[in-house]
């Protein structure tokens, strides 16, 4: 079922939680709401679920206004960050809850409840835990049970609030892939909230980047990563080096030259650490820098360099690092492969790339 969000606004006292949010989620799409804590992403999710009411604006499910539909009648599956399993019920009873509270006329018979619950537990691969209590499960297991519980009522929309936020890295990665598979099998619309950019980029069909109650950018994971609409999106999705034209003339000028209407000083250039090439010889348009630190981190080698008292971060592959054989205090030249320039502050100007 599609979800349409129109001009939603919400305040808590003087704090603006959401302002003029517009978003369309077609049926079958998996959307990530991504942003730092306090950006309003959870509030938006709760408004969709009907657990919070918006001050202004509308939420439409399949084209129908939901303002007067109570949370319990929305057919929304909600998964909480801290699972919110019923602690005094067994795993089986947790999953059966949604079926047991149905009005007597539509409530399935006991045998059917049993078979449906067991089918769901098989789906999340935890049918062997049916008699346990939530406290006897690991975090990953709890979240899978919470998901099975939400799916028991055959929701039209699945909402997940930081579903993997409280889990270990390993379990988190596994559950991410699993959620993606499950979503594809279920053919429902899903929205999940996260502050983890990697998670959003890996799992979602579309990513909605939010900041201070507003949407900064909506796009596919590739779009928001490779062509961020604002400096905020650039910085939030991965590491970035920021160059102000006054300081780092050589680079920012290259990009700004083509825009005579903007004064050189009002320009900021963004370059990702892995988009910078290091050379031992002077380059035209290259920045001269001194190697400060070299750390090997997993498959990458991170090099910190100083240029005019500012720190620049560069990520190299292990092979490239071996060839370069960088040493502390060494003098090198830097050249950007991909550079993006914003008028400071805010607006996009132009993209400048120069291949090496």
């Amino acid at each position, binding site marked *: 079922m599609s979800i349409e969000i129109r001009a939603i606004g919400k305040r808590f006292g003087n704090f603006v939680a959401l302002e003029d949010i517009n978003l369309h989620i077609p049926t079958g799409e998996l959307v990530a709401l991504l942003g730092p804590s306090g950006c309003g992403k959870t509030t938006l999710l709760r408004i969709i679920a009907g*657990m919070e009411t918006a001050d202004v604006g509308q939420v439409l499910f399949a084209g129908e206004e939901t303002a007067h539909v109570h949370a319990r009648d929305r057919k929304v599956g909600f998964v909480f960050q801290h699972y*919110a399993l019923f602690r005094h019920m067994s795993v089986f009873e947790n999953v059966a809850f949604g079926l047991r509270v149905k009005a007597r006329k539509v409530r399935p018979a006991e045998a059917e409840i049993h078979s449906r619950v067991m089918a769901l537990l098989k789906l999340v691969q935890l049918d062997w835990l049916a008699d*346990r209590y939530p406290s*006897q499960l690991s975090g990953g297991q709890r979240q899978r049970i919470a998901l099975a519980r939400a799916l028991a009522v055959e929701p039209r929309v699945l909402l997940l609030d930081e579903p993997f936020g409280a889990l270990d890295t390993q379990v988190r990665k596994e559950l991410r892939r699993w959620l993606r598979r499950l979503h594809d099998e279920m053919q429902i619309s899903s929205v999940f909230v996260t502050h983890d950019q990697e998670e959003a980029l890996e799992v979602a069909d579309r990513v909605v980047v939010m900041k201070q109650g507003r949407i900064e950018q909506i796009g596919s994971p590739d779009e928001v990563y490779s062509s961020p609409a604002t400096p905020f999106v650039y910085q939030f999705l991965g590491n970035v080096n920021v160059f102000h034209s006054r300081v780092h003339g050589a680079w920012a000028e290259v990009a700004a030259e083509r825009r005579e209407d903007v004064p050189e000083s009002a320009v900021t250039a963004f370059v990702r650490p892995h988009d910078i090439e290091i050379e031992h010889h002077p380059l035209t348009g290259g920045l001269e820098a001194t190697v400060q630190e070299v750390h090997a981190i997993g498959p990458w080698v991170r090099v910190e360099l100083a240029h005019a008292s500012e720190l620049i971060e560069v990520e190299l592959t292990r092979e490239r690092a071996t060839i370069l054989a960088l040493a502390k205090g060494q003098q090198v030249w830097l050249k950007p492969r991909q550079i993006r320039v914003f008028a400071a502050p805010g607006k996009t100007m132009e993209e400048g790339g120069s291949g090496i």
Partner: protein
Amino acid sequence: MSGHLRRVNAEPRWLRALLLGVGLGFLFFFLALPLLAVFVEAFAAGWTAYAGALNDPETRSAIGLTLFVALFVLPFNIVFGVAAAWAIAKFDFRGKSLLITLIDLPFAVSPVVVGLVFLLIFGAQGLFGPWLSAHDIKVVFALPGIIIVTLFITSPFVARELIPLMQSQGKEEEEAALSLGAGAWQMFRRVTLPNIKWGLLYGVILANARAMGEFGAVSVVSGHIRGETNTLPLHVEILYNEYNAVGAFASASVLALLALVTLLAKTIVEWRMRRENSMLSADLPAEKT
């Protein structure tokens, strides 16, 4: 080797002995000894005198009245306590801290003042006095007055017990129930109530103990009519003032027994709460796939 190994974090022996002695001494002189004295005095004239004192119609009426009042206020306390705790723990609203303060009021006000307040409201010269006497309704110096002050005195116990419990449990489980289609009553009965049942019982036991033992407030509004509005604590005082030591201590022993039963119930509930908590929060990390 000379001497024993001493734990490095242990206090000197004399200090430990002193602290332990002070604690145990206090326990003996102020808790065990008085309790013992009650029973010794009650049985001073033998079993038959004790049984006779308890069989006195006025004493039996006082015991009956005390039990009746305690049972009568119980459902009110449960409803008020759960409702107040629910509102405070699960919702944010204007005047919340004021409500919390108001709930604590009966703890802060002297019981005698409470009695006087209700005397001023319902007494013959009080606010509703003329209206009540015109309709021939007796509140003060009658059963309703005793019930009203007891309600006032005992109202905070359940709420006080439940507020921190419900706050620590948060409202996510309720929200989950809601999103799964549960109605308000289903949510309360299937999710909230099972989570708070031991805390609720604990609060009820404390409120009950207070309801049976209350003296000051009841004393002001009861009128001390023997066989009618005399509760057990009031009866003990009357008998004692009449130099009927055996009667007074026999009645007091009943109160003490009720207190011991309450303590036992409280201990059992505490034990169950702890056991359930440890059972429900024990972690079994095994991740089998």
